[in-house]
């Protein structure tokens, strides 16, 4: 199987007014083609930062990559300059975010926003910087005369473009695409806007879709619909998905592989079935036993003792050691390296060090 994305020894640091926080600490992850990978962890574990780093959207002023590489199809994205990254962002790698309502512009209709996305794609493919030229050349039939930088008015969007947009809306299972085209984002429900976001992302024909907590703000039934959709899409349009979520249960329902992060490091990395049937890292174990699972008859929740460590402090040893029920002497001294136990099941814990 082909490896699409390879993150190697990545370390990302945030420099705020008061302190320096190591958000991602020496992380290595591989994502294969057509794979649905979930990165799971609690708040502050660095999972969102990881997603933002891949797509190059880290806040410029405060965040800094201090080590590592992000190899997308053998190109190190971190070494590219601003302009080149933009070529990838939007065409090869797309991202959707948690709050669909704030991710879409409130002053343009759905049709216009998706059209813009498509035009940008076409412009990049043709090597043009501005979409005006592209609009002229590619979609001249039925469009109004004269180049326009953005598709502005209803009726000026060519029929071809409109049909393509409708196809994408149908792809995300929106029931009345023609109706939705004319709506503004605030007129749509959360689930609908999230689908529109997915449609916009897909219209770029990305090979990789990064989804940062896409369903956290949605109702449970809507979440189920959106997750179902994402799973279908892998097969239909051959897009690999990197899902960032705090919800282990969600990850178990849709992912092929799951990575558990803690305090900026990877605790465990395994196939979804192995992870849930045989969780190796004590943190994973702890997470699993503190999620109330609706179907088990015995109802014991075992919370993980203690609190998250301060990421601005350089720690010695395993970051989970203060809270670990199976802590040993060596855990306080050295940071455990990743160890591969069975096929594709990696864990960073001295319990499994040979």
């Amino acid at each position: 199987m082909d490896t699409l994305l390879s993150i190697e020894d990545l370390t990302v640091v945030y420099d705020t007014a008061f302190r320096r926080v190591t958000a991602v600490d020496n992380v290595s992850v591989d994502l294969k083609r057509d794979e649905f990978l979930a990165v799971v962890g609690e708040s502050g574990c660095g999972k969102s930062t990881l997603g933002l780093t891949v797509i190059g959207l880290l806040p410029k002023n405060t965040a800094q990559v201090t080590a590592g590489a992000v190899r997308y199809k053998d190109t190190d994205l971190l070494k590219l300059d601003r302009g080149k990254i933009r070529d990838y962002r939007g065409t090869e790698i797309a991202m959707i975010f948690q709050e669909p309502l704030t991710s879409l512009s409130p002053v343009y209709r759905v049709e216009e926003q998706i059209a813009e996305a498509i035009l940008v794609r076409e412009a990049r493919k043709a090597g043009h910087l501005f979409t005006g030229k592209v609009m002229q050349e590619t979609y001249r039939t039925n469009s109004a005369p004269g180049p326009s930088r953005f598709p502005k008015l209803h009726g000026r969007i060519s029929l071809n473009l409109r049909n393509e947009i409708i196809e994408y809306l149908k792809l995300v299972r929106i029931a009345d695409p023609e109706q939705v085209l004319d709506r503004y984002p605030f007129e749509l429900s959360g689930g609908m806007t999230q689908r529109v976001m997915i449609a916009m992302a897909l219209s770029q024909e990305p090979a990789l879709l990064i989804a940062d907590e896409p369903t956290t703000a949605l109702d449970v039934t809507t979440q189920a619909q959106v997750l179902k959709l994402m799973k279908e899409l892998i097969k239909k349009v051959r897009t690999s998905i990197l899902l960032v979520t705090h919800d282990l249960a969600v990850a178990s329902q849709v992912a092929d592989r799951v990575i558990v992060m803690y305090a900026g490091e990877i605790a465990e990395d395994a196939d979804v079935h192995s992870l849930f049937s045989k969780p190796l890292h004590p943190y994973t174990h702890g997470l699993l036993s503190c999620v109330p699972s609706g179907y088990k008859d015995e109802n014991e929740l075992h919370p993980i003792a203690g609190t998250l460590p301060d990421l601005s402090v350089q720690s010695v040893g395993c970051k989970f050691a203060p809270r670990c029920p199976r802590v040993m002497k060596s855990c306080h001294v050295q940071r455990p390296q990743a160890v591969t136990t069975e096929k594709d099941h990696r864990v960073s814990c001295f319990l499994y060090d040979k």
Partner: protein
Amino acid sequence: MIATLKEQKLTRTPSSFRSTLSLLFRNKESIIGFAIVAIYLAVGLAVTIANALNFQITPYEPIQQNVGASLGAPSPSHLFGTDFLGRDVFSRVIASIPNGLVASFCVVAVAICVGALIGSVAAFKGGLFDELLMRFTDVIFSLPALVIAMVIAVALGPGLTHMMIALMVIWWPPYARVARGEALRISHQNYIEAARFAGQRTGQIILKHVLPNISMTLLVYATLDVATVVLTYAGLSYLGLSVRPPLPDLGEMISTSQEYLILAPWLPVIPGLIIAVLVIGFSLLGDGIRDALEAAA
């Protein structure tokens, strides 16, 4: 007992007041602003104490005339020169600093108090009451400072206190608006509802919960506003509505020495500069405070 839970330790660092203060000083401009204001305050304080204790801190008596030495240019013995009556300008400037400061602080303080109360009561009572209060605020807001000051001058006679009253009457509406906006925002916070569950009545909620939480925003607004008050006060005293001669006052000094602009430029220019520097100082300080608070958030 809760046997299974271990006791929790505090995880966050205690009060970040000091660190916010350090943010304030990161930036050159706010340090300058702070320095300027500090100097003025120190001088003002010194003069006030000296007056209270009845001893003279200025090199010369501000009202002492010496017509023989009138219109002298700045020199080592008279740092800012002398005016048309031979009075030492430097002493007069020093002596007049408290006026501007006291006036500005009092006006702003009253504006905050009145504005905060009116704004929060309007926000929490809502409905018709809110409408009426806000329209009343708009009416006051539309009154021009100068006209009101003059009316009051005619009614009560000129003087520092009367000028302060005039300004206090019309200065509060923007604070009421800001306060109302903030109070509305806070009214949706859970701790306000929790206060109702704690048996607190609306008035108690406003005093205990709303006012303390909107004070920060109002204070930031006020620090940016003080500069404007200083300027307005200077304008009013220029028109002669404030302190009467021979007592020194910066605005008044400018207006009486206008005619000597060519002959003795230091007479109108120096007081003007003193005012300008104070306004700049407050502006820089205000900006610095606002930036520091935003960065700390």
